[in-house]
């Protein structure tokens, strides 16, 4: 591996005083927003499941930050990643901690503007900004970062962050279903395994990898159970389910699984009592598009579920929520090579990210959406795009055509990492929900 140079390629010098001031202000705002978001979620569903208390705790970064810091002191390594293609099982098998480090802080994106133009994806700008002022506990605690070369923004984000930390790149093929693509990706998986072993000093053996795979399989099972429960009348508000899904990105996976199962137990009981989170005739909405990262970028789900008329999110196709865990790693034989192949296939084939194309375009994404519409009884789709997210923006018309043919209304909602446009977005979301209710009325 080539040694990374010490000289900063992108980052400007900022005075420590300024860093500290900004960090203080944005951290305070962040804490307020976490509290406010949870308060709003409780207000929407006053009878919120008791099991959500745990996820509220994890949603406040402090608890998990402390745990990871303590684990680091005992010699554990932390491996951060930006895109979902980073093989979590290999990180776990080497007794390291995986955390996703994408930033959801609006204010941090303004700092990112000092390095990249405003046309760049705000999530990328915000992650850069977060790094400039050491805002994200998980990004700070990461010993290294896995940068998967998916969209243009992510590709350069990894490069920019390499000013601070070792960054391991993984090249992802843009076409999934060819022999050579899988070959390339399998090689990337093997290489990253070697890098993880070298960093942690732990050799990944069959036994450890098997138990790591079993661990994420169990998490997937719990996750799927939760999504299954959302198929029927609304037993949990969409934001609550999204928060559960999202905490998987930084929580202890075993504990997360346990708590999610407990939540599902509680929800099943509620189903049997017909104890719904909101009226069963509330329009059922699915979100698709750019990821929405806690805590700041929570405005769209909040607006939908607080709107007048109200909507409920029952499914999504976001890499920050349901795409995290939808597919398990499927292993036939527990040999090392089979396990590695299963991991390679799981991460490549299951993805519906718009960075992929094929003869049929991104057909997997279309199929996912259609399946959700059918099985989760979706009445309307909100297609969410943050400015600068070229790939999602460009796939819209295709999705819209398919939705039109199925008679499912879809609304293209474009926004930025900002709080200022909430009024405008409210108008649009309410008009969309009004349209759905009028249809249901008929």
């Amino acid at each position: 591996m080539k040694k990374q140079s010490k000289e900063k390629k992108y980052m400007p010098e900022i005075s420590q005083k300024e860093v500290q001031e900004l960090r203080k202000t944005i951290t305070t705002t962040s804490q307020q927003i976490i509290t406010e978001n949870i308060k709003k979620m409780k207000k929407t569903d006053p009878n919120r499941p008791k099991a959500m208390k745990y996820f509220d705790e994890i949603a406040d970064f402090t608890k998990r930050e402390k745990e990871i810091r303590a684990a680091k002191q005992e010699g554990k390594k932390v491996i951060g990643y930006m895109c979902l293609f980073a093989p979590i099982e290999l990180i776990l098998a080497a007794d390291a901690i995986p955390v996703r480090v994408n930033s959801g802080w609006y204010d941090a994106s303004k700092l990112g503007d000092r390095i990249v133009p405003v046309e760049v994806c705000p999530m990328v700008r915000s992650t850069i900004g977060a790094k400039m002022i050491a805002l994200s506990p998980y990004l700070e605690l990461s010993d290294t970062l896995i940068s998967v070369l998916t969209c243009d923004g992510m590709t350069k984000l990894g490069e920019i962050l390499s000013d601070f930390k070792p960054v391991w790149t993984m090249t992802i093929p843009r076409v999934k279903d060819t022999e050579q693509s899988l070959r390339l990706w399998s090689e990337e998986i093997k290489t990253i395994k070697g890098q993880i072993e070298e960093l942690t000093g732990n050799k990944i053996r069959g036994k450890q990898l098997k138990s790591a795979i079993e661990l994420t399989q169990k998490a997937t099972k719990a996750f799927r159970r939760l999504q299954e429960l959302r198929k029927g009348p609304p037993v949990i508000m969409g934001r609550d389910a999204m928060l559960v899904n999202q905490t998987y990105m930084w929580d202890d996976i075993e504990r997360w699984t346990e708590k999610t199962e407990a939540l599902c137990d509680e929800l099943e009981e509620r189903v049997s009592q017909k104890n719904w989170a909101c009226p069963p005739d509330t329009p059922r909405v699915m979100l698709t598009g750019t990821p929405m990262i806690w805590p700041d970028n929570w405005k769209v789900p909040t607006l939908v579920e607080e709107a007048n008329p109200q909507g409920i999110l029952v499914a999504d196709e976001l890499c920050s929520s349901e795409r995290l865990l939808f597919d398990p790693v499927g292993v036939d034989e527990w040999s090392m090579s089979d396990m590695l192949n299963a991991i390679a296939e799981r991460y490549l084939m299951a993805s519906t990210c718009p960075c992929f194309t094929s003869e049929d375009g991104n057909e997997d994404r279309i199929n996912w959406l259609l399946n959700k519409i059918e099985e989760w009884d979706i009445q309307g789709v909100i297609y969410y795009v943050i400015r600068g997210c070229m790939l999602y923006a460009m796939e819209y018309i295709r999705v819209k055509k398919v939705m039109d043919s199925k008679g499912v209304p879809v609304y293209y909602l474009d926004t930025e990492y900002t709080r200022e446009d909430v009024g405008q977005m409210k108008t649009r979301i309410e008009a969309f929900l009004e349209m759905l209710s009028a249809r249901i009325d008929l």
Partner: protein
Amino acid sequence: MITAGLDLGTQSVKAVVIENGKVVSRSKAFSGFDPEKAAEKALDKALKDANLSMSDVGHITATGSGMDMATNSNSTVSMMGADAKAGIHLFPNARTIIDVGAEEARAVKCDENGIMMDFVVNERCAAGAGAFIEAMARALEVELEDMGPLSLKAERASSINASCVIFGESDVVSLIHKQESKPEIARAIFEAMADRVSSMVHRLGVNPDVVLVGGVARDIGFVTSLKRKLGVDILIPEYPEYVGAFGAALVAAKRLKKVQEK
């Protein structure tokens, strides 16, 4: 049955009072810094003109970007919903309703019952809306209401970029420096706006009949350019700026009827 609709727009508040589907009075007030007060003022005046008092009104529905500020209303409806409702009432064959106001342009697709089927709103920028004409009229030193007739005098249009009010203005300044004629620049302004609005409508599909509402529908310059871009005839009601408030009043009537039936 008497009901009222309030449209709290970005520039002005419109009030419409209706009785059994027919408009009995309409009134307008500038939104200014206190839209809540403006809404009260507009409604009071409309009621006074019709010799009515608040107690005669069965239900008030508010719409427009400031609808939540109308404390005197009983319910709200989205601007798109109000447009669809009123558009179909005025023109039963309307399937596409375009609304160009001071700071926003939108288009609604509706079915024969006035139920909204789809809608689009312009991107966070006023370049496709009335404020753009105002800013450009300033740059050309022309009265706002003269812009349209002026543009019709042009044989051709200059070329400007209407991606943004500010950049549009600097485009206009450079055309002035190039000594292009005022009519040609005025026409360029409407063409650029119509370009923005028509590409937005095309995303929805141009389903006739097409109805244009909102204050900008009064501008002959814009209407001429939009007709040219869309390639279809455009229907315009007599009081285009009151259509949102009228739609809200119709929604109010429907809601009142529902309550009375119960």
